């Protein structure tokens, strides 16, 4: 089943042509990893899928992005963002308690009953494999958690809203190897129920957990294929050069 269908997508920020004629599909329940050097348009692509790009005033686009066969630009953007969640590069807890961080998105949807909130917060924390570590201190400030815990808190916060797709924007860039392993493990488990799109600067991470991998360069999609194929026999020389670390 196709979750996202992107056809001839071009976007600009002012005079900068950030994405050039991108066409690709994202399948349900896969982990699609996106690799590429800095300024290759990976993050702009990711932020297209939940319409965060348009927060910038000089943003323009052409082409079509369909989510579940519906043009996202015609969807209610709040609704889209509930279904397409995002975990940011740096752990980004809100200045609230652990509990209130997770409950934030739920309260936006009008859920007010404490019992219901508690149940959903617990479920989200369990899905992000953080429950055991924080269950006795849900009322402390989220800033008091470690970096890795904060990042899983952000994941739990996204999961609480019950999205279908989760976008990860270099989620491990600020984390140590052990926390990274935990986040990766979590992502692999999430695959059963969610579609994951992961932008990463860490080529090895893409090789470890991606089902398919896309290689972006200067705003163009150079190649997209099964991860194994990309890392063993890429069809484009530039892909080969990048994963061997010859540039970028």
């Amino acid at each position, binding site marked *: 089943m196709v979750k996202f269908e992107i056809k001839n997508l071009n976007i600009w920020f002012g005079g900068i042509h950030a994405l050039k004629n991108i066409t690709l599909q994202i399948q349900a329940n896969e982990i699609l990893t996106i690799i590429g050097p800095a300024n290759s348009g990976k993050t702009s692509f990711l932020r297209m899928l939940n319409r965060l790009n348009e927060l910038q005033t000089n943003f323009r686009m052409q082409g079509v992005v369909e989510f579940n066969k519906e043009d996202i630009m015609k969807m209610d953007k709040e609704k889209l963002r509930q279904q397409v969640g995002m975990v*940011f590069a740096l752990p980004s807890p*809100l*200045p609230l308690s652990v509990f209130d961080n997770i409950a*934030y998105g739920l309260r936006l949807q009008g859920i007010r009953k404490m019992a219901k909130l508690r149940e959903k917060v617990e479920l989200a924390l369990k899905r992000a494999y953080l429950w055991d570590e924080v269950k006795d201190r849900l009322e402390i400030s989220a*800033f008091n958690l470690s970096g890795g815990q904060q990042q899983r808190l952000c994941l739990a916060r996204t999961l609480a809203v019950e999205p279908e797709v989760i976008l990860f924007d270099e989620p491990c860039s600020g984390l140590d190897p052990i926390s990274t392993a935990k986040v990766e493990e979590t992502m692999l488990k999430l695959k059963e129920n969610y579609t994951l799109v992961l932008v990463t600067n860490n080529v090895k991470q893409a090789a470890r957990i991606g089902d398919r991998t896309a290689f972006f360069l200067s705003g163009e999609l150079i190649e997209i294929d099964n991860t194994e194929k990309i890392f063993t026999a890429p069809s484009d020389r530039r892909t080969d050069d990048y994963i061997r670390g010859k540039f970028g």
Partner: protein
Amino acid sequence: MSNPKTTQKIAFFFLFLATLLIIVPVGLIIIIIIRKGLPAINWEFLMDIPREGMRQGGIFPAIIGTLYLVLGAIIFALPLGLMSAIYLSEYARDNFLTRIIKLAIVNLAGVPSVVYGLFGLALFVVFFKFGASILSGSLTLGIMILPIIITASREALETVPYHFREVSYSLGASKWQTIRYLILPNALAGILTGTILGLGRAAGETAPILFTVAAFYLPQLPKSIFDQVMALPYHLYVISTQVPNVTEKMRYGTALVLLILVLFMNLVAIIIRYKFRKKKKW
């Protein structure tokens, strides 16, 4: 030839001296007013009406009048100032109109207070026919402190990191939900601080209330917002210059009450800011 070490010492000495000198006027004002005014302070002085042509009795109506005026100013200026600050910092794009608005706010802050008084007289007292009343005086003071509230609120809103907004949107929040549940709670301390500083300013001003509300001598409490009231700064002016033979004790006692009122407001603002800074983690 001058020795660089000596010149450095001389420079340090003068810079330090200049800074130290700031304490002197503040300290002297407080000491003189307390020394001369404290003997006047007693229950009767605070709670009684003025008697014998303001040479005896207390200043209760002036205290109450000032409190009413400050309260009226905040009821008018806080919602208006806060809403325009939210508009300017969260919604307005940078275009000709918003630049004009920002320029207007800067200019509003620069208008001399006596001009506000005259403006209040023309608009509220005469044109809207509110007469010299608490309503006219509060509105005039409210307009005077608007720029303080708008500027402080905008700064408070803009210090909430942009990233928080993105997180909120990414969870499906609308713009208004983001403002209401995330930005405002985190900007509240800054907004309150600015508001209280504005109130301190409003409490101490004489010129804006001179033509719009202040009563020369009115030994009773107001019954409605269309009544005149006495107010501390104006009362102080009156008993210091307009009424002969008022004891020094009474004059300084009035000044002390006004000073305490304003310093108390500033102190509250400082405490709020301090508590919030301690809590803030980003």
